[in-house]
C-alpha cells in the first residue's frame, strides 16, 4: 500500500503463463494457464490508482478497475470479486475474450508512450476463476413479482438479461434453439480459448436462481414471438438471438466438398465435439492443407482449430495488412506462435476442385494498399495478373456474420434496418410493445461484453416497462 508511484512504475508487466506453442497446438486444452497468485499481486501493484480512472470509461460495463486493483494488490480477493461481479456477471468469460487492448488497457495511463498497460484482462480472469471456486454469491431473490418474462437465445446477451431479471423477482424462461445454452460461447469460440465448463457453471447459477431453460425451442418455428406473447402468457420478451447467418463470398467453387463456413466448421468441432470423433459421432473433414479466409477472431479460431486437428499447413488468407486485422491481439500472437502461416494482402478469387468434387486449392490475387477509404484505412487494391494458388483440401470462409431471418421473418410488426438487424429505441424496445432486443441482433456482429452490457441495461428497462405498463390481474 505504501508503495510510491515511482516504485510502481519500476515494475514490468508480468507475463501470464501459457502452454508451450508446440504442445498446445496439438490439443484443445486451454492455451492460457492464468496468473499464479504471486504474479497477480505484483501485476495489480502496477496500477497507479490514478485520479483520471480512464480505464473505467474504457470498460463497456464500467467496472471500477482501480478499486478492483487495490483489493487484488492487498490480497483481498473476496472484495475484488465483489467489485467485479457488481458490474459484470460473467467475468470468467470476458476476462478471456474481451479485446482489452481496445478498451480498458488502451486508455490505461501505464500504456502511455513506450509504456505497457496493466494486465486488466488477465487479472479479471484470475479473480473470476478464484471466485468460481471460493466466492459465495449470496443472491437474495425478492418475492415473485408475478411477471412472466421470456428470453430468446442463450448467448451472453440472453444469459445476462435472464440473470438480471431473475434477480428482480420475475419468472424467467430462456428459449434456446440448439441443444445446449451459451450461444457463440459454446458453438463458436473454441475450448482452447474458453472452456465450456465456465459457461456451464454460469448456466447452472442461473438455474439455481430459478431461471427455466428450454433448449431445442426455435422461436419462429416451435413458437412465434406472437404465440409467446398472446398464447403462452409472457408479459415481455428479450430477443438475444445473435447474428447467426454465415456470409459466403459468392466465388466459384464454394459448394465443393471440403468448403465450410466458419460457423459450420466450429460448430462441428466445438458444439458437436468432432475433434473427438469417433468417440463423438459428428465428423469433420480435417484436411492436410487448410486455408481460412478472414482476419477476425472467427478466422483465428478456425485456423488454430485446423492446426489442432492435425493440418500440416494452416494458412490464413487476409485481404488487408496485419495492422487492419480485427482479431484480438493475443489471438494473432498465439496463432503465429502456433505455426499459422499468414498470407496478408491476398484476396481469394475462386476455389479449385478436382474431378471427384473435392477442394484442391484456392486461387488468390495479391493486393497492395491504395488510398485511404472512408474509414481512414488504406484500401486494398488488386495487383493485375498476380494470381497464385494456395494448395488446400479444406477451405473455411470466416467473413463475418449477418442477421438470421428465421425469427424476424415471422414478426412483421418488428421493424428491421436495411441489413435485417432489429431496430430498437433508446430503452431497447423493438417496434412491438413489450418485445425488447439486444446483443448482436441489434448491433451487427459485435462483442461479448457489448452483448452483456445490452442484456443488463435492457433488463432494467424491461423491469420499468413491466411495472409501468403491465397490470397483473388482481
Amino acid at each position, binding site marked *: 500500500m505504501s508503495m510510491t508511484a515511482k516504485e510502481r512504475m519500476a515494475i514490468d508487466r508480468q507475463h501470464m503463463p501459457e502452454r508451450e506453442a508446440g504442445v498446445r497446438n496439438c490439443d484443445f486444452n486451454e492455451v492460457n494457464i492464468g496468473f499464479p497468485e504471486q504474479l497477480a499481486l505484483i501485476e495489480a501493484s502496477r496500477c497507479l490508482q490514478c485520479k483520471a480512472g480512464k480505464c473505467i470509461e474504457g470498460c463497456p460495463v464500467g467496472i471500477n478497475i482501480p478499486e478492483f486493483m487495490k483489493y487484488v494488490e492487498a490480497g483481498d480477493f473476496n472484495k475484488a470479486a465483489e467489485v467485479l461481479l457488481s458490474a459484470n456477471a460473467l467475468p470468467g468469460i470476458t476476462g478471456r475474450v474481451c479485446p482489452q487492448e481496445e478498451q480498458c488497457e488502451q486508455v490505461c495511463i501505464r500504456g502511455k508512450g513506450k509504456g505497457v498497460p496493466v494486465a486488466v484482462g488477465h487479472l479479471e480472469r484470475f479473480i473470476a476463476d478464484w471466485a468460481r471456486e471460493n466466492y459465495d454469491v449470496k443472491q437474495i431473490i425478492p418475492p415473485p413479482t408475478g411477471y412472466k418474462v421470456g428470453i430468446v437465445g442463450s448467448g451472453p446477451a440472453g444469459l445476462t438479461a435472464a440473470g438480471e431479471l431473475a434477480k428482480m423477482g420475475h419468472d424467467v424462461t430462456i428459449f434456446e*434453439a*440448439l*441443444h445446449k445454452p451459451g450461444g457463440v460461447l459454446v*458453438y463458436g469460440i473454441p475450448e482452447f480459448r474458453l472452456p465450456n465448463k465456465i459457461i456451464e457453471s454460469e448456466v*447452472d447459477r442461473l*438455474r439455481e436462481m430459478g431461471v427455466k*431453460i*428450454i*433448449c*431445442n*425451442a*426455435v422461436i419462429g*418455428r*416451435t*413458437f*412465434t414471438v406472437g*404465440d409467446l406473447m398472446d398464447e403462452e402468457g409472457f408479459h415481455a420478451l428479450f430477443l438475444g438471438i445473435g447474428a*447467426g*447467418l*454465415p456470409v*459466403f463470398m*459468392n466465388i466459384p467453387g*464454394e*459448394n465443393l*466438398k*471440403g468448403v*465450410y*463456413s466458419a*460457423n*459450420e466448421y466450429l*460448430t*462441428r468441432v466445438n458444439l*458437436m*465435439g468432432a475433434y*473427438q*470423433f*469417433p*468417440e*463423438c*459421432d*459428428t*465428423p469433420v*473433414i480435417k484436411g492436410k492443407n487448410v486455408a481460412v479466409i478472414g482476419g477476425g477472431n472467427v478466422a483465428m479460431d478456425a485456423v488454430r482449430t485446423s492446426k489442432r486437428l492435425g493440418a500440416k499447413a494452416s494458412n490464413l488468407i487476409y485481404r488487408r495488412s496485419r495492422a487492419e486485422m480485427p482479431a484480438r491481439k493475443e489471438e494473432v500472437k498465439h496463432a503465429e506462435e502456433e505455426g499459422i502461416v499468414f498470407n496478408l494482402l491476398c484476396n481469394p478469387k475462386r476455389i479449385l476442385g478436382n474431378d471427384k*468434387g473435392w477442394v484442391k486449392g484456392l486461387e488468390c490475387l495479391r493486393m497492395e494498399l491504395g488510398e485511404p477509404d472512408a474509414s481512414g484505412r488504406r484500401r486494398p487494391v488488386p495487383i493485375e495478373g498476380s494470381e497464385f494458388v494456395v494448395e488446400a483440401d479444406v477451405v473455411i470462409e470466416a467473413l463475418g456474420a449477418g442477421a*438470421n*431471418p*428465421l425469427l424476424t421473418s415471422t414478426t412483421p410488426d418488428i421493424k428491421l434496418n436495411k441489413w435485417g438487424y432489429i431496430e430498437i429505441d433508446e430503452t431497447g424496445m423493438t417496434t412491438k410493445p413489450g418485445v425488447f432486443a439486444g446483443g448482436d441482433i441489434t448491433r451487427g456482429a459485435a462483442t461479448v461484453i457489448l452483448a452483456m452490457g445490452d442484456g443488463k441495461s435492457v433488463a432494467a428497462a424491461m423491469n420499468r416497462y413491466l411495472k409501468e405498463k403491465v397490470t397483473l390481474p388482481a
Partner: protein
Amino acid sequence: MGHRMFKILDAKQLASDVKWFRIDAPLVAKHRQPGQFIILRLSETGERIPLTIAHSDNQQGFIEIIVKAIGKTTIELCKKEKGDSISDVMGPLGEPTEIEKVGHAVVVGGGVGTAVIYPLARALREAGNYVSAITGGRTKELVVLEDDLKAVSDAVYATTDDGSHGFKGTVADKLRELLADKERPVGAVYCAGPVPMMRAIADLTRESGIKTIVSLNPIMVDGTGMCGGCRVSVGGKTKFACVDGPEFDGHEVDFDELWDRLSAYRDQEKAAVDRMQHECKCAAK
C-alpha cells in the same frame, strides 16, 4: 441437469431396416405442419440428424417418425423401443408444404421418402385434390406405408424393381403412365426419396412443365440457417435447405451437386459403423 428427455411412446418395425416411432414432444407437435421435420440427437455424444415428421397430434402432444437404418445414428435409433428416451428433439423445422388445389396431385415416395409424402397426401386430399400415391422400393420388403397411404389417398400404386410386389418397374415408370392418362391430367407432382429417383421424376415432368416439388435431404447440422452446411443450388442460387426448404422446385435443383455433397463424409460414416459393429461383437463375447 434438468434436461428434458424425449420419451418413445410406441415403436413398430415396418421392414427389416425401417422402423416407426411415436415420440412424446408436445412443443414440436403444437404448431407442426406437413412438410416439416425435426432434428434429433440420441445422446450427449450423438450427431444431430434430420427426420421428417410423418404425423403429429397436437392434443396428445406426440410426433411420429419413420426411420431407415443406414448408418451409425439411424441404426442406433432403430434399436430403441417403447419406453426408451432420446436426448434432444428440436422442431418443427423447415417451411411447411404449400398445399394448393391442383386437381390431380401425384405424390411419389421412394423408400423412407414415403414418410415425407404420407402427410402430404393427407393434406392434399383434405384440400380437395384427387391424390394418387406411388410408393416404391427395390423389393417388396422395401415398400413401406402402403396401407397407411391407402387411407389418405384416392389411388395407391406400389412398385418394385423386381416385380415382387405391385407394379414391376420404378416409380418413374409408373408416373410416366399416369402422365399419359388424358382422362385425369396431372396438376402437380410431389416427390421425396433418393436423389437419383428425384432427379428422374423431375426429368420426366420437365418438358411438360408440370409443377414438381422435391423434398431435399442434404447433410444438416443446426437446422436454423446458422451454418450453411445444408446449402443446395436451386435455379443457380444458393439456398439453405433447413430454412428455405426442404422442398424446392424440382426443375431448378442441381441434383448432381446435392448427390456429390452427400458423399462428403463417406469414409468417416463407414468407420463409425465398422467401429459400432466391432463393439457389438466385443460386447457379445
